[in-house]
């Protein structure tokens, strides 16, 4: 039976988390006799996205459900569209990225399939056994789904590398049927950060600031460092709560989970919930004036000192 992956996109561009999710699907496929991977693209005037999706290595077929009512990507109509797809063809697994897109949509699908979803997997043991973090990443649970039903999963990008793009695309087919929108939900609007901002979950380097930065203006020092390193800017929950930066900067259990090559935590004490969002980074640097801050316990390189003095020095030396 094939495996279905739900593509995340904004009708214009494919989101990289989709490629990580395809890798998770490939890991399952390897343990399920090379099951085919299908990707469902749901949106409006999203042909280009479907064509890009078809070029992800390992994808056998792309289904494009293209209609005006799918453009705003509200969960109700998207879930109905996924169910049309799983009704038209029997799938062993349905996967989505563990991003706000997948988190919003997939449990709605799972409940309608009468399936208990497994959220945020980071490893595939076999076709029905997976590893996922629980308790803010303080424990890793190995979970087995009861065989015989569709397995519904979200995949954390930190657990799976992005599948590469290839030259020749897989075929793109139109979805056989399009869901009607019966929920009456209206998209009023979106306020999104500028598109030139490097996305946290896809960045090679992340520099994050905490309460130690003392005020919103001081995030400029962090941004200068980020610009030098071509890094994304993140923040601790404390910094978000203090209003220094918007919530979508938040790295942690309830924010974004990242695992870049280099993570630089500046003025972040290292609360459990923050560590949950970055502990799998390859190299961690902590800069904090409190030598006993818990962040130093997981840092590869710790520097004790005032963040506001150190930041400009560091930026200047790179």
């Amino acid at each position, binding site marked *: 039976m094939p495996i279905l992956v739900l593509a995340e996109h904004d009708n214009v561009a494919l989101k990289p988390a989709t490629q990580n999710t395809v890798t998770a699907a490939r890991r399952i496929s390897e343990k399920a006799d090379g099951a085919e991977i299908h990707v469902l693209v749901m949106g409006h005037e999203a042909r280009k996205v479907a064509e890009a999706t078809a070029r992800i290595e390992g994808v056998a077929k792309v289904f494009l459900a293209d209609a005006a009512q799918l453009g705003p990507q509200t969960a109700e109509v998207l879930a109905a569209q996924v169910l049309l797809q799983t009704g038209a063809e029997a799938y062993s697994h349905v996967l989505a990225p563990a991003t706000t897109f997948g988190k919003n949509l997939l449990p709605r699908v799972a409940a309608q399939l009468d399936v208990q979803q497994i959220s945020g997997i980071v490893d595939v043991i076999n076709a029905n056994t997976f590893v996922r973090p629980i308790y803010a990443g303080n424990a890793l649970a190995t979970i087995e789904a009861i065989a015989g039903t569709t397995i519904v999963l979200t995949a954390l990008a930190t657990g799976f590398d992005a599948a590469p793009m290839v030259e020749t695309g897989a075929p793109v087919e139109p979805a056989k049927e399009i869901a009607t929108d019966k929920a009456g939900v209206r998209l009023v609007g979106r306020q999104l950060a500028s598109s030139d901002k490097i996305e946290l979950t896809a960045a090679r380097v992340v520099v994050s600031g905490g309460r130690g930065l003392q005020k919103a203006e001081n995030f400029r020092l962090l941004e200068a460092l980020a610009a030098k390193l071509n890094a994304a800017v993140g923040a601790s929950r404390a910094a978000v709560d203090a209003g220094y930066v918007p919530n979508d900067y938040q790295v942690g259990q309830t924010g974004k989970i990242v695992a870049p090559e280099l993570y630089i935590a500046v003025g972040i004490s290292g609360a459990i919930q923050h560590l949950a969002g970055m502990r799998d980074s390859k190299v961690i640097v902590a800069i904090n004036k409190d030598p006993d801050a818990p962040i130093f316990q997981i840092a590869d390189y*710790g520097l004790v000192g005032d963040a506001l003095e150190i930041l400009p020095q560091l930026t200047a030396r790179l």
Partner: protein
Amino acid sequence: MKVLTPIKRVVDFTVKVRVKADGSGVDLDNVKMSMNPFDEIAVEEAIRLKERGVATEIIAVSLGSAACQETLRTALAMGADRAILVETGDELEPLAVAKLLKQIVLKEEPHLVILGKQAIDDDSNQTGQMLAALLDWPQGTFASKLEVAGSKVTVTREIDGGLETLELPMPAIISTDLRLNEPRYTTLPNIIKAKKRPLDILKLADLQTDVTPRLKTLKVAAPQPRKPGIRVNSVEELVTKLRDEAKVI
């Protein structure tokens, strides 16, 4: 307008849990338990709707052991009008919780169900969306702002990269994100008052719902510890280490 606020009793957010040596789970003996922080935000939001004259009755619901009564009393002390406990010793998966909550919703007929976006123990982030699916209601997940006008609720949602605003017809399900509000502290007079508010206890069997687990936890392990790091004494040393040793810049 009636508001239902499902709440979960979880390990307190300040506790660093330990994995049991036999790999069967995490050690919850003598660990401080509290209301799931996101559910606390949900209760607070319901109370604010009542204070604005939008909501008329707030019903807090919990599913679990008798100890959940304590968590429900906290919700009552915050300002919920009454509480329902579905008492069970069984471990309930999110789908089972959603099915049980559906039964309560069908009985109580609230206009809004407000609940936390995720519980900080299993971090599943599913129950609200599943309940919305089972009821065929619209959902406004990860809410950071809520406004009710007539038969519609406008929800600002925290999404990757920014915010999204949706207008939903009611009845609807709302799941809360951190910035929706800051929950109030309970005061002694309110804690005393809360003791007199009704708390109904239902047995799992009363709801005639299949809650058989669909997943099996084979093992729970501690994450790989990171190798110990070093302290550097200057910015210069840090840059050298990152360049020559870690080779990341």
